[in-house]
Each structure stands twice: as structure tokens, then as C-alpha cells.
């Protein structure tokens, strides 16, 4: 018997005006799984994430997280239940040093609940978390203002902000885009470590090679519809996927 899924998306629809951004999207996600969500530009990947995290309200359909329907809840309530996400366009607080950026997620009621009301010194926790994602402590990178950090560090900061919330489900929206091969190679172990800790992860990626290496399962979207689902080599064999990507991946 299969255990009940951590997240179940059932018959999800979203239209923006006349545009069908998501059509009849359904999938289950088991605890500890790493799901890759791929598809050509404009296929609705980010919209799917926005729907799950409540930044966009679904037109129709259900999102069941831990047996409870969370569709239509405001983002802060969904995130408090243990779903954290990163943004494709990084959203740091540019005025602040990197480690002060971490204070805001550490101030979250979610963290308060997880650590049992005792925050401790948020600055110290922030520096520890940043070191985990590769802010070298000896080089004092964490003290630099977010406005002067290169893209690679901003992506790490975005990841650290999500990890700080101690979530059960982490949704990474194109974490690798805009990063060099070396940078990607240095972030992959962080994601693998999260998996070892038992986190469930959804990754939206265009960097298919790197994604296929770590993903358990892939879902391919095109024009808001799921056109394939399965192991990475299986989905790329599918005719529908080949057709969708033809031209897009010249």
C-alpha cells in the first residue's frame, strides 16, 4: 500500500483572462521525493509554483498538503505549514547585509514554532545558515551588502532564506539559471544534503542535465498541461516532449 502523499495536486486550473496558464494539472508527491518540473518557456511552471504557495489563487482544483486543502489560503499561511520557495527572480533586501537578509525568515512564526519559542541570537543562526550554503565565513561575504553580491551568492542567499524556515517541502524555482557550471556544481551537494535530511523538493529547471542527475521523477508541462511524467530518461523519449522542446532546445 502506498503511503498518503505529502502533496496532492488535483485537477488544477488557472486562467489569466483568456489565457489558460494551467489546465487540469494533477500529481502526487511523496515524502522525501525530488520532483523535477520542466517545460518550455511560458509552459506554466512558475504559475504552478505560485498556485501551490498561494501567491496566485487557482480558478479550480485542489491542493492537498498533509491531508488538508490549502488552495486559496494566503501565502503566509501556506508557508507557516512548512512549504518554502525561492523566487526565479531573486528577491533580496538590497539595502541590508546578506546575514541581515536572513533575519526576516528567522523572524517567521514558522521558525518560532519549530524551535519551540526560543529564537536565540538570530544573527548567529543567520551566519551559520549562510555558511551552510557556501558563504565563506573567513572571507566575510555574509557581511557584504546584498546589493554588491554577485548572482551566484544571491541565489545561495535565496536558498538559505528558504532553508531558514525549516520547511518540509522546498520549491526551487530555477535556482540554477544564470549560474556558471562551477556554481551549479557547488550547489548540487547542498540540495543532496537537504534530501538526506528528508526534505521533499520540487525543482523547476531549464538545466536538464544537472536536474536529471538528482531528480527522482520528472513532470513535463507544455501550455499549462502535463504532457509527460516519469523517470528522466523515459520522459525525454516521449514524442510529446520531443515535439514541445523541438525548436525551444535547438
Amino acid at each position, binding site marked *: 500500500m502506498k503511503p498518503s502523499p505529502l502533496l496532492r495536486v488535483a485537477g488544477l486550473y488557472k486562467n489569466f483572462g483568456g489565457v489558460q496558464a494551467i489546465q487540469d494539472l494533477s500529481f502526487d508527491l511523496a515524502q522525501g521525493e525530488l520532483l523535477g518540473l520542466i517545460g518550455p518557456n511560458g509552459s506554466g511552471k512558475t504559475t504552478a509554483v505560485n498556485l501551490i504557495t498561494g501567491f496566485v489563487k487557482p480558478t479550480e482544483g485542489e491542493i492537498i498538503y498533509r491531508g488538508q486543502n490549502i488552495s486559496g489560503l494566503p501565502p503566509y499561511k501556506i508557508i507557516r505549514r512548512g512549504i518554502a520557495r525561492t523566487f526565479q527572480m531573486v*528577491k533580496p*533586501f538590497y539595502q541590508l547585509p546578506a546575514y541581515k537578509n536572513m533575519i526576516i525568515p528567522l523572524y517567521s512564526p514558522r521558525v518560532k514554532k519549530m524551535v519551540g519559542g526560543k529564537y536565540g541570537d538570530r544573527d548567529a543562526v543567520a551566519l551559520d545558515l549562510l555558511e551552510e550554503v557556501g558563504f565563506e565565513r573567513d572571507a566575510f561575504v555574509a557581511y557584504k551588502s546584498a546589493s554588491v553580491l554577485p548572482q551566484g551568492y544571491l541565489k545561495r542567499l535565496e536558498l538559505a532564506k528558504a532553508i531558514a524556515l525549516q520547511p518540509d517541502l522546498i520549491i526551487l524555482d530555477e535556482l540554477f539559471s544564470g549560474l556558471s557550471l562551477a556554481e551549479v556544481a557547488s550547489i548540487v551537494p547542498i540540495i543532496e544534503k537537504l534530501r538526506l535530511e528528508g526534505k521533499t523538493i520540487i525543482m523547476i529547471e531549464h538545466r536538464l542535465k544537472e536536474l536529471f542527475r538528482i531528480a527522482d521523477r520528472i513532470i513535463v508541462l507544455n501550455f499549462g498541461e502535463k504532457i509527460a511524467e516519469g523517470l528522466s530518461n523515459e520522459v525525454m523519449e516521449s514524442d510529446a516532449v520531443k515535439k514541445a522542446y523541438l525548436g525551444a532546445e535547438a
Partner: protein
Amino acid sequence: MRNADLNSGGSKQRRKERIDRGIKARSSDVFALSSWREMLYLAAPRFIPIVGCLMLPLVLGIYWQKVLLSVAVFALLAISWDILEQSGMISLGQALFFGMGAYAAGVFNHYFGWSPLLTIPFASLLGGMICTVILLPVLRLRGIYFSMVTLIIPLMLVRIVEATKIFGGTEGLSGITPLPSKWLELYLIVGALLGALFGFRRMMGSDYGLVLKGINDNDRSVMNAGINIYWFKAQALFVASSIGAFTGAFMTHVYMFVGMPVFALDYSILPIAAAVVGGPGTMAGATLGAFILVPLSEILRGIGGLRIVIYGLFLVVFIVALPEGIFHYIQRKYHQFERWVEV
């Protein structure tokens, strides 16, 4: 210069170093002090305004004491504006807060005979609460849309008072009890100003303040931390409007009158001018701005009709010459002070 030093031989070499270099430990809020002089360097910018403000009522004449009241009131309104600005709400309606507090104090004194020492704290909280409730529905609006609503509400309230003739209508309520003594009046407002300035600076520097600033910077990102930004915005709004309501309640007892002028545009615009000239985002800048603009407007009173023109010119010159604000400029220069150190 360096060569000359090297060639001088024998004598110890010296170079210039920024004073705060040895004091600041990388971050702006951790200090490592090693002498009384360094302590003084840090304490002076806090010490001087406190002593200065406490001394002013003693050295000023009666006329300038009245100006000081007005300075402190506008400084508090500017601080109130600054708190909202730092939390991502650009308000054009400080008059709403001022007027609410003024009417609340006036009504409770006039109809119920409460003493000023009771009406002022009560009106601050009640006024703050009413303003927060009025603005709750528009907290979702951002930028100029929020500003427009705050601008319009006080103007609407004036017409409502006029049309319904409540609370004395166009005549207002007069014969309000004054505060027991002139000195209490002066030190109440100066104490409130200092308390608000240092207290709310500390608040905005804390982790709580950081969340408010985060909302200004990127509200979606704060929402993404599982934080209900509308709850935090409502709290900031309550704090800011309570400060405004306090000044209104205070002035009602100083003027011994409350009427439609309490919703005047001056109470909305002048605090913004003070905060912008002084430098927004610090509250100290807002206070400094009020200490420059209000007396300036008094000095120019003798000029007559051209007063507004010259006043406006001053504003333009300040803003063009020091767009960052006077306080930020002074702060930067202060951190650049150098001393000679032996190498």
C-alpha cells in the same frame, strides 16, 4: 608626504586613520571601545541633542518657547511619517492623525470634563486606533494609491464636520482646559520628542524593525517568510498614527481650542518637507528637518508676502544641494573624521 616621513628618520611614523575604524567591528552596530575618547566619539551625537533639547526651554524667550512647541510637534509628525515611510507606506495625511487626536482630546475635555493629563494619553491611543481602522482597508494598496487615500481622508473629514455641524461644526470647540503649567507643556513635548526619537530609532534597528523595512524593500519576499505583512503594516500604522494623535491632543490643550483647521494640509505637508530635507529613514533627520524648517518659517514671517517664495527657495536649495538629506550628510562626514595614529 610618505617619503618625508620615511626620511625624517628616528622619529616615529604617523599616518591618518578614520576614528571609527578602530571602533566599528565590521558591522554597524557592534563596537569595540578602547578609550574614553572613543566612547565620547560615539556618545556625543546622542548626548548633544538630549542636553540641547532639555536646555532649550530654559534659554529661550516666551515667543521662541512657543516656536519650540511647534518645532517639537512637527518633528513628532515627521517621525510618524518616517516610520510609515520605512515600512513602505508613503503617507500624505499626517493631518488625519493630528486631527483625530485633537478632536478626541477636545471632545473628552469639552463634553466629559476629563483633565488634559487623562485626555492626552487616551486620545493618543484612541486616535491611533481610529486612524488604523480607517486605513485598514487600504493597507493592500501600495505606493501612490495608498498616498492618495491618506491625502483625501482628512479633507473629507473637514467637510463632514462642516456639513453635519458635529463637535461645534465650523465654530469648533473652545474653552478647552490648558495644561497646568507652561513648564509642563514644554517638557512634556520635548520629553515626548526625545523618547520617540530614540525609542523608535531603536525599534527600527531591532529585528522587528528589520521586518518592517523588509516590507518596504520587497513585500513579497517578506510574505514568503510566512509573515503576515498586513498585520505588521497595521502595527506600524498604529504606532505612527498614535504619535500623530498625541501631537494633536497636545496642541488642543495648548491652543485651548479644537476645530476644522486641525485637518489642514500644513500638518501633512510640513512633516514630509522636514523629513525629506533632514533625510528620511533615520527619524533623526526628520527631527533635524523640523528644527530647521519651523524656525526658518518664523524668521521669514517678517518679510510678509514673499515669505512663501523664499521658504520654497530654501527647500529647493536644500533638496538640490543635499538630496540625501542633511542628517545623512552630517553622519557621513562624522564617520570620516580622522585622527593621527602612530604606525
